[in-house]
């Protein structure tokens, strides 16, 4: 039980580190958001559930914490991404396509 929980915490911590690494390494806001959302949500989920496995009496509260993280983290990141697009942060030069001109509410924001 103890070893399984420690392995879960280890996986979670590894993904948290990779998410932060992606924040530093990737080229523009949108790609950074990708790394920042997925890796940190997953890593936090695994770390918290791992703590719940190591101490079985804590499991239910740990589950509640992970549930809140799973619900709130994508929403706040989505709000940040939308704000970035609306305030006209440019895409990276290597981007392939930008279809946001077809979208009604972005017709008059600056191009690329």
């Amino acid at each position, binding site marked *: 039980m103890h070893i399984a929980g420690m392995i879960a915490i280890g996986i979670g*911590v590894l993904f*948290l*580190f990779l*998410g932060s690494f992606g*924040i530093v390494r990737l080229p523009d806001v949108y790609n950074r958001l990708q790394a920042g959302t997925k890796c940190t949500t997953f890593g936090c989920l695994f*770390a918290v559930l791992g703590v719940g496995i190591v101490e079985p009496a804590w499991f239910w509260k740990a589950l509640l914490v992970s549930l809140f*993280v799973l619900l709130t*983290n994508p929403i706040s990141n989505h709000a940040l991404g939308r704000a970035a697009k609306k305030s006209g942060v440019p895409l990276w030069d290597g981007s392939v396509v930008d279809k946001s001109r077809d979208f009604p509410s972005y017709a008059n924001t600056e191009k690329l």
Partner: protein
Amino acid sequence: MIVSIFLLVIGAAIVLCLIRLIKGPTATDRAVALDTVTTVTTALLVILALVFKRYIYLDVALVYAVLMFIGSVAIARFLEKGI
């Protein structure tokens, strides 16, 4: 013993986020770094509760997970209508 390695890795993650917070060309980059550091901190608090062996410390992580989202949404709302 192995927990101390986890704590050091999380500390390194916070340092990386601070680098992006200093460097970031736009305000949105900095907000993304702050949001990431919040999630990392929630995990850190839960692991520290395991280290200190106190059940009551989990409550702090719960409050963190619920309330931090308000700050990010406030910043995002401002950026949408601002410059």
